[in-house]
């Protein structure tokens, strides 16, 4: 058996991921987080905030909740069940920043917490910000700034 044949053979020996279950759980967990966000949004409207403030305040609250659940060791369990359903909402983004910050506290606040904080979220930030700049430029060209 050569390397290629072995790699194919070994691949077949791995149990198949439970796709249907994973997708269902991701849908339920992701959906639940969005419903929770919608409830916050509606409540904030009731308190009389305007559209702009509500959007910002909802994000702030969700980031806080995601960070808090990471801090008390619950968000990793939600992520294990929900997969992308827990990773893609803004709570998952908070989890990806708070978890390395906690993990590397022993290495100090500069080279530990601060330097490692974006080790998972970094690529999302770099390419997210990068692509928003490109979209902005295209927008400028096609609408001529109007």
């Amino acid at each position, binding site marked *: 058996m050569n390397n290629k044949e*072995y*790699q194919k053979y070994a691949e077949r*020996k*791995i149990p198949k991921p439970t796709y249907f279950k994973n997708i269902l759980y991701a849908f339920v967990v992701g959906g639940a987080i969005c419903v929770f966000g919608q409830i916050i949004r509606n409540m904030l409207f009731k308190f009389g905030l305007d559209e702009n403030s509500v959007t910002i305040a909802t994000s702030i609250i969700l980031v806080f909740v995601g960070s808090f659940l990471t801090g008390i060791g619950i968000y*990793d369990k939600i992520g*294990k069940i929900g997969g992308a359903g827990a990773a893609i909402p803004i709570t998952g983004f908070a*989890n990806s920043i708070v978890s390395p910050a906690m993990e*590397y506290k022993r290495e100090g606040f500069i080279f530990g917490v601060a330097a490692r904080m974006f080790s*998972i979220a970094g690529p999302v930030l770099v390419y997210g910000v990068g692509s928003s700049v490109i979209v902005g430029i295209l927008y400028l060209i096609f609408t001529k700034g109007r």
Partner: protein
Amino acid sequence: MAEKRIGLQTVKLSNPPSILGTATVVGPKEGEGPLKDYFDIILEDDMWGQESFEKSEVKIQEEAIKQAIFNANLSSKDIEYLFSGDLLNQIITSSFTARQLNIPYFGLYGACSTMTESLSLGAMIIDGGFADKVVCATSSHFSSAERQFRFPLEYGSQRPFSAQWTVTGAGATVLASSGNGPYITYITTGKVVDFGIKDANNMGGAMAPAAIDTISQHFKDTGYSPDDYDLIITGDLGLVGKRILLDLMKKEGYDLSKVYSDCGIKIFDGVEQDTHAGGSGCGCAAVVFNGYIYKEMLKKNLNKVLLVATGALHSPIITLQGESIPCIAHAVTIDNLID
């Protein structure tokens, strides 16, 4: 002339060193597993009162070694060499442990194969007449390994089914030139085998060819067959590696199904403890050997065992660069009787 060599990769020890005592320290999860009654110390908290996981691992390895020396009715002054290794960068756990123990020290890196690498070298040093008493040890810690090789603990990621769970634990063996056994009789040293597997979440699949290479070479060199052994046990191939090993060994003409097991499968209850393909890490083979196998050999439930610890010699940086995982397996025969 190297008159103790037989075949291509094996040595037959002419004065087989005896195991005088062993000890194991394991974390809470391992202490809830099916082998819990075989371990000397089970921690309630994997930090063990230390301020970092790394320091906790040092304490775990140190206590395992001290306990093994105590169980052998010796003191650390009697020990002439310490052979140990671990998974952390620059094998820092073992070096800190050696600093505490004040025993002449050889630091080893064999990844998860370190238990049989240390037993091999310790036994050869004794048989060669260079020492009378040595300690062979290794350790791993789930949390210190996880932060070096994977993601932060609190990060919510999903593990694939082929992924394995690093064992928190350390095992130590005291070997001596004379004693009442069990004895180390044969050593088959593995070659690095690499079939180009790049997935660090499929260590079992990557390491299986190394184990197959070493085990079949061991049979060729010694003339033994699977029936000569009560147990042939690999270090941490897990469920995926086990399937591959049994299947490919059969194709080579060796049916291992009756005597084969894997430390990574034995140490956890895969379904109850949610460890997916099984345990891994240096500590896996170390605690299963020094706990379960040694104690079963003393009770004579097992009389001849081939321990084949398997190591994936990769580094996180090289994996990111898209390189494959070089793997190794070292086999050691442990016998209750010597001829």
